[in-house]
């Protein structure tokens, strides 16, 4: 049995794939920005000495890190409406990504915060900086700089994980691929191309995050 590969069969559907790439990018960007912000706040809460909040954050982090993203997504999309929270496919996908990345980035950023030498904070206190100032200038920037590579990897993992959002019919890249193969029956070719697109996106994202990191941390650290 010889199979004739026909990648040409995908060409008429390129617009769908492109739309999918755009939506995957949107999901990733929103998920990354909000998720890392959430993670930063949660890490701060966890590192602070407020025991109740710290414990709540700890439970959140462990719950999310020890269950699959797909199940979190299903719980949000199918389960939450039972509580009266109805979300569109896109909203559910974004929320799941934020919650997921939030938990991972909490742990990553917390590790960075714990690595800040105590003397730095004491020095800032002796300069009469208040808590917010200390957090902003003395703690979070050096902490983020230290853990930026780990955080970047996690953002790439979340971007790749977004492919399962196709299962709730969020119209991202995998959804587009599923749709196209249902139309032209060229499953292998379509998934091959989609995989290649993901590979390109992850390389670009990694590269973009590296440049962004340099911009954030290297230049201003001289000021």
């Amino acid at each position, binding site marked *: *049995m010889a*199979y004739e590969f026909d990648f040409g069969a995908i060409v008429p559907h390129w617009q769908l794939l492109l739309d999918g790439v755009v939506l995957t990018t949107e999901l990733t960007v929103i998920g990354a920005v909000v998720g890392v912000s959430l993670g930063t706040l949660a890490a701060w809460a966890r590192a602070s000495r407020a025991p109740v909040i710290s414990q709540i954050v700890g439970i959140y982090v*462990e*719950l999310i*890190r*020890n*269950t*699959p*993203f*797909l*199940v*979190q997504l*299903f*719980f949000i999309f*199918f*389960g*939450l*409406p*039972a*509580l009266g929270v109805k979300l569109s496919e896109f909203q559910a996908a974004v929320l799941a990504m934020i919650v997921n990345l939030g938990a991972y980035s909490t742990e990553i950023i917390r590790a960075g915060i714990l690595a800040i030498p105590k003397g730095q904070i004491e020095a800032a206190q002796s300069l009469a900086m208040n808590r917010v100032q200390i957090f902003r200038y003395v703690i979070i920037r050096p902490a983020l700089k230290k853990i930026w590579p780990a955080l970047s990897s996690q953002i*790439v993992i979340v971007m*790749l*994980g*977004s*492919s*399962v959002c*196709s*299962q709730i019919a969020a119209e991202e890249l*995998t959804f587009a*691929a599923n749709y196209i*193969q249902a139309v032209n029956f060229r*499953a*292998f070719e379509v*998934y*091959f191309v*989609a*995989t290649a697109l*993901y*590979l390109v996106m*992850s*390389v670009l994202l990694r590269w973009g995050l590296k440049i962004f990191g340099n911009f954030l941390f290297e230049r201003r650290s001289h000021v």
Partner: protein
Amino acid sequence: MSEFSLWDIVYNLLLAARWTVLLSLTAFVLGGIVGLLLLMVRTAGNPWAMRLVRGYVELFQGTPLLMQLFIVFFGLPLIGIDVSPWIAAMLGLTLFTSAFLTEIWRGCVESIGLGQWEASASLGMNFRQQMRYIILPQALRIAVPPTVGFSVQVVKGTAVASIIGFVELTKAGTMITNATYAPFTVYGCVAVMYFLICFPLSLYARHLEGKLRHVAR
């Protein structure tokens, strides 16, 4: 529509959870074997083989697990091999696991000082002997905590196999939801079961890490 009590839901999910555990174990063991072979190829020193393994790792770390499963599931039939969802899931997850484990273990092997290689070479050991008696026993000690930690990722990865139709915990959750119309309860139970599998592994990994740090000091 038949009535499902909470116990019925939990019981059926538990039955399906056996497949999650079985798939995780299979993928982890087979992935470990393949990963070890790739590690040997990569550390043996042939530059082309090294590049090949690096490309392999990049490929699996740079694409979604779901796509990898799709390609195995839809690709193998094209070359005349008919695969069931079980075989496709096992194969896909094995490849995925091997790529990550080989990368984790490479870091451990590289953390062994160059002096160890040189000393063992000066004793006339060949590559196999160096690995077997000098490098791996030392690297193993460092490798255990991140390897246990990664096993959590494998267990969570098996959830994606539900999408190609393999009936494990997540798929069973979807099927039961379709019968009971109680997604909140069912997916809640599914999440709890994953947590009960994964959390002990996470704790154990953390415990091992702590122990290692203690020894290192």
